[in-house]
């Protein structure tokens, strides 16, 4: 029990001043619109922790920026509140986090990173009509299930491989067709195996000679045998499709053993367009090409965001711009829906023509949940930087191909 004490002159003055200040600021008195909860799902522990962490950074930067600019306008300046879930690099944890997010009342969910997590999580979200924006997950099964709530902002596997093959042919033709023989190196999971199969079919039809297709598991501790095999076959082109660790190992082994094909042309590679690889192993990384997700270098916001990420002591990985853009896409849909109602948000997502993102896609257009304007770009490591070499419309460097010396 608190004893009642006579108000002193000082306390009376203080209360009066506080009251006056409150009355003088009606803007502050007006109730702040309740926050819009946005689920951010990323695998920040387990095998995919690096990617998950970068995805989270991208989402966080977008949310901070939206909030700083006054929140969701149509909802009275409601702030976006992040409800974060760790998918622990497996689909069960991913769907369990979706259940939690639903219970916490999120309006939409962004993320997932890996295809299996995206598949399970978007399906769990569909039960509650929660709009789910896939950030990376490239498996084309994600958008082929007829789920009304699932949207993928970035390109899927089919689009990436088609573009990669088209650009490879363009690259080779422009250089006077120096590459005739190819060795495919791939990890034995979803990316690698599917890609190797497609490459085998398409490249043979286009006149390339596939000397050998070498599969390796993930994780692999040693790539010397793969490198030795490449030396023996002496191909013009090496096309690797692996995760970070394995590709770094392969590139370093090739460099150490002085195996120098005319080009290394990676597709959806975990390392070839990763600044960590470029900084840590600049010689091994030099001139490696990749066809992957990449932010649009023409947009001023890209450089600004990159600076922010680097100021945090982090590398510039594609997860950041993809998640940044996906969060902004969802925020735009919520703004247009003018409501926290999940079904209305799904409808707004489906009709989205969002262009204020930093990927090289143009305005979004969703067909069966897939952004049909999404496209990958070709990059090449040149002089310690990652440059865009295709498409020509916004390439900031000419391709170095064939690599000599």
């Amino acid at each position, binding site marked *: 029990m608190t004893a009642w004490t006579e108000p002193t002159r000082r306390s009376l003055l203080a209360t009066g001043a506080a009251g006056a200040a409150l009355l003088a600021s009606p803007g502050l008195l007006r109730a702040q619109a309740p926050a819009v909860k946005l689920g951010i799902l990323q695998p920040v522990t387990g095998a995919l*922790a690096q990617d998950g962490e970068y995805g989270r950074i991208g989402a966080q930067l977008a949310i901070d920026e939206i909030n700083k600019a006054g929140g969701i306008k149509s909802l009275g300046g409601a702030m976006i509140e992040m409800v974060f879930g760790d998918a622990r690099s497996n689909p069960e944890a991913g769907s369990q986090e979706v259940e939690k997010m639903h*219970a916490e009342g999120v309006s939409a969910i962004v993320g997932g990173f890996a295809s299996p997590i995206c598949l399970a999580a978007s*399906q769990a979200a*569909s039960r509650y009509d929660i709009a789910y924006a896939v950030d990376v997950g490239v498996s084309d099964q994600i958008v082929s299930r007829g789920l009304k709530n699932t949207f993928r902002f970035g390109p899927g596997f089919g689009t990436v491989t088609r573009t990669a093959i088209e650009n490879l042919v363009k690259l080779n033709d422009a250089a006077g067709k120096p590459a005739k023989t190819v060795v495919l190196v791939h990890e034995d999971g*979803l990316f690698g*195996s599917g890609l190797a199969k497609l490459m085998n079919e398409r490249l043979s039809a286009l006149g390339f000679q596939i000397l050998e297709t070498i599969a390796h598991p993930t994780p692999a501790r040693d790539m010397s045998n793969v490198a030795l095999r490449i030396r023996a076959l002496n191909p013009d082109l090496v096309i690797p499709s692996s995760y970070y660790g394995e590709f770094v190992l392969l590139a370093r082994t090739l460099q150490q053993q002085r195996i120098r094909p005319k080009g290394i042309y990676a597709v959806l590679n975990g390392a070839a367009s990763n600044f960590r690889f470029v900084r840590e192993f600049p010689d091994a990384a030099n001139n490696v090409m990749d066809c992957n997700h990449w932010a649009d270098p023409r947009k001023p916001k890209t450089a600004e965001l990159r600076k922010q990420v680097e100021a945090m002591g982090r590398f510039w990985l594609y997860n950041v711009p993809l998640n940044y853009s996906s969060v902004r896409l969802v925020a735009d849909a919520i703004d247009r829906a003018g409501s926290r109602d999940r079904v209305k948000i799904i409808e707004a997502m489906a009709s989205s023509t969002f262009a204020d993102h930093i990927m090289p896609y143009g305005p979004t257009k969703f067909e069966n949940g897939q952004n049909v304007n999404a496209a990958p770009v070709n990059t090449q490591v040149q002089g310690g930087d990652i440059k865009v070499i295709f498409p020509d419309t916004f390439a900031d460097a000419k391709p170095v191909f064939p690599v000599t010396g």
Partner: protein
Amino acid sequence: MKAYRSLLVVIAALAALPLAVPLLVGAGLFAGPNTFYNLMIFILIITLAAQGWNIAGGYGGQFSFGHAAFFGTGAYVQAVLQTRYGVNAWVALPLAALLGGLVGAAIGTLAFRARLRGSYFALVTLAFAEVFRILANATPITGGAAGTLVPLKIGLGQMQFASSTTFFYLALTFVAAVLLLNRALERSRFGAWLVAVRENEDAARALGVDTLKVKLKAITLSAAITAVAGALYTQKFLYIDANIAYGAWISVEALLAPIVGGIGTVLGPFIGAVALIGLGEAAKTAIHAVFGSAVPGVDLVVYGVLLIVVIAFAPRGLLGLFGKFDLFARFGIFGKRGGR
């Protein structure tokens, strides 16, 4: 009947759990009812896989490190029969158990005829699971590395339910059936032979037990039960790939749950699964409440430390701990343990 009474009490308590859900949610332990059901369904699926392991590993002493081979076979049969051959999910489930059992019998025949025991048997099962994983990853019928996706069609006929409670009861039905089966097994001649094989295989053989036959029967039954867990996983998540179905994670879960809960006991796998998965989830929720999402992975550290503590203080599993303090044994709640 007396021997089953205590189990029936446990099963009835589990079946009545949904009544407690509003209280648990109200107390802030779970974010919502479905968060609870989702967790419970996963615990029950792991329990089923662990119950399977417990028959060969716990009662029979045949420590398998490769129960993923059976879990994965069940999961893939359930998925592939539905997606490629249009078989109904309810028909696919017994077939998944059957094929899982056959794989168990095949691996068992090869390993036991070669007289592999102890760590050699463990290594061979591990190798088999890896071979299955690589094959599933490379074969077109399993969808290769892209995995197999069962189309989402909610309906009783498709074994896909709008309400999580229904799936909870489906999984509980299987777990309960295996609990009763385990108790029957403990009390049967076959169960006694199995324990005899575990305790001293040579002595059992000398006493006239056909050890090969007993071990084969055990691993076949064990595999079939674990395969049902795989099939339920498919129905719950509707997507599997080689790493989910045949990955080492499930081999570890299947053996860790009985070891933590109480090896060679009827309730051990369930207690272990609740402790392991519940502990993991509790650590995650608690750390999240304290630190937010700022420090990913701390919950796993806490989980690891708790696991070490459990194993240090309860080397015979959590049920062994209860027995030590004579808490439940006095009331005969958990019945007799399987002879160890």
